[in-house]
């Protein structure tokens, strides 16, 4: 589902954030992405979501070569990818419901369809009673789960998470990782960037290790 072939990324500043990275991730597979700070984890995820384009090499997502994807098709491509951020990136002025509904609204889904799917997604993350609340009135863990509900609400085949447990306690972190695991059991390809070595070791899951932009362990 995700295929990196000799991918390098050089930012405009001249810094080479990724060097000759190659790996494959099958559909429904889950993997962690780890490495020191500045190793290039976020950069790799940004290449998958087409926030950045590779400087060299090829990124293939579901067989689609991203180098050849026209600019105006990017929005439609992104609808296949659920994104979870460390800082949640929720819209503070909208309710939990509206935040989760966003991808469906953008895709032009029907009203009833939106209501049904948003409830299903909120149910999955255990926040069904909080749809009328505003994000800032929720705890950090709850906000993160709202972000996850938004990422999966339109059932994307790929789920990317950048340090989703960055500032959560171990108990909550395990819970959220478990949630990701259940998505991968349903066939979603999941890639999670994280520093949390302890958690990774306990999960016994495939782990990609980056160091200074190179993939050093798989």
């Amino acid at each position: 589902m995700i295929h990196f072939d000799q991918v390098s990324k050089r930012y405009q500043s001249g810094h080479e954030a990724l060097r000759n990275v190659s790996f494959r991730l099958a559909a429904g597979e889950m993997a962690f992405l780890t490495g020191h700070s500045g190793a290039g984890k976020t950069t790799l995820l940004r290449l998958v979501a087409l926030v950045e384009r590779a400087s060299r090499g090829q990124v293939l997502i579901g067989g689609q070569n991203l180098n050849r994807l026209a600019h105006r098709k990017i929005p439609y491509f992104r609808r296949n990818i659920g994104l979870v951020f460390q800082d949640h990136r929720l819209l503070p002025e909208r309710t939990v419901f509206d935040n989760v509904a966003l991808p469906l609204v953008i895709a032009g889904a029907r009203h009833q369809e939106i209501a049904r799917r948003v409830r299903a997604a909120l149910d999955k993350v255990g926040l069904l009673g909080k749809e009328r609340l505003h994000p800032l009135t929720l705890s950090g863990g709850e906000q993160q789960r709202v972000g996850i509900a938004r990422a999966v609400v339109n059932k994307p085949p790929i789920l990317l998470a950048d340090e989703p447990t960055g500032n959560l306690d171990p108990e909550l972190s395990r819970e959220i990782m478990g949630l990701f695991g259940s998505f991968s059991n349903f066939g979603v390809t999941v890639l999670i960037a994280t520093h949390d070595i302890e958690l990774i070791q306990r999960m016994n899951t495939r782990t990609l290790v980056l160091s200074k932009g190179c993939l050093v362990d798989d």
Partner: protein
Amino acid sequence: MRAKATTPHFERGPRFQLRAWLLRHLQTLFSALGELTRSPLGTAMTAGVIGIALALPAGLYVFLDNVQAVGQNWDGKVEISLFLKDQIDDEAASRFALSLHKRSELRHVQLITRAEALEEYRQLSGFAEALNAFEQENPLPALVLVEPTLRYAQPEAIKGLVAELGRLPAVELAQFDLEWLQRLHAIIHTLKRGVVVLAALLALGVLLIVGNTIRLGIENRRAEIEIIQLVGATDAFIRRPFLYTGFCFGLLGALMAWLLVEGGLWLVRGPLAELASLYQANFLLASLGLRASLVLCLMGALLGLAGSWLAVRRHLRGIEVG
């Protein structure tokens, strides 16, 4: 791509798509209106500035239209003076006046004989003594004052009528003070040009006002725009609310301008009617009218749309994620 297979499929019949499209636009319109009511003071101020900018040319236009109407319907005040030839005596003069009565383009004929003319002149001029010297010889010609019907009182028609009357054998000179009318028309024409130039400048001002307001809106929602880009919003989706907001600003501004102009006219109407009655004129100050009002609203809305479009084009570029 394989991803497509698991991508959610929403119902996509043509009728559904049309309905969804309409619904989406309506939703955006209402959310834009809601956004505007959320900061009523700021909205009122922006709409007020746009309103004043639009009211200025609209008001001037109405004013000039009214002045022009005065020139065209100077009802009953259009008078042609026919000075008769010296050799025409009183009897011939009254026969000539009678013949004029039969002309359909004239609605009023008044003969002033040489003696009456002298008498009137004596009273009006205060040169009674000097004129007494002419006791034997009256220097004033007989005069026939004619008033054309409304149709012939129009600036163009009256020119031909004056020339025609001047060619009559009894008439020495046919005189009509056209100049003031022509001058008035020339002045109005010039001023209307001026209004067009002013309107163009102020329209540019409206573009800038709306553009700047929208630019601020974009800056304020930068984070939000980035987020919805990341979850797959197209440029059109992101642009739409800003375009609707600009449209609403323009329309609100136009309504404000309409109120300002009509309010101004309402204030002036009473005193002006009094003034007109002093001149025995029956003059009604015309208001904007349906067509001009619609044009005003359309211009406002279009300017708002154009201003926001320029701002969106210029400032959304910078926020592009990816």
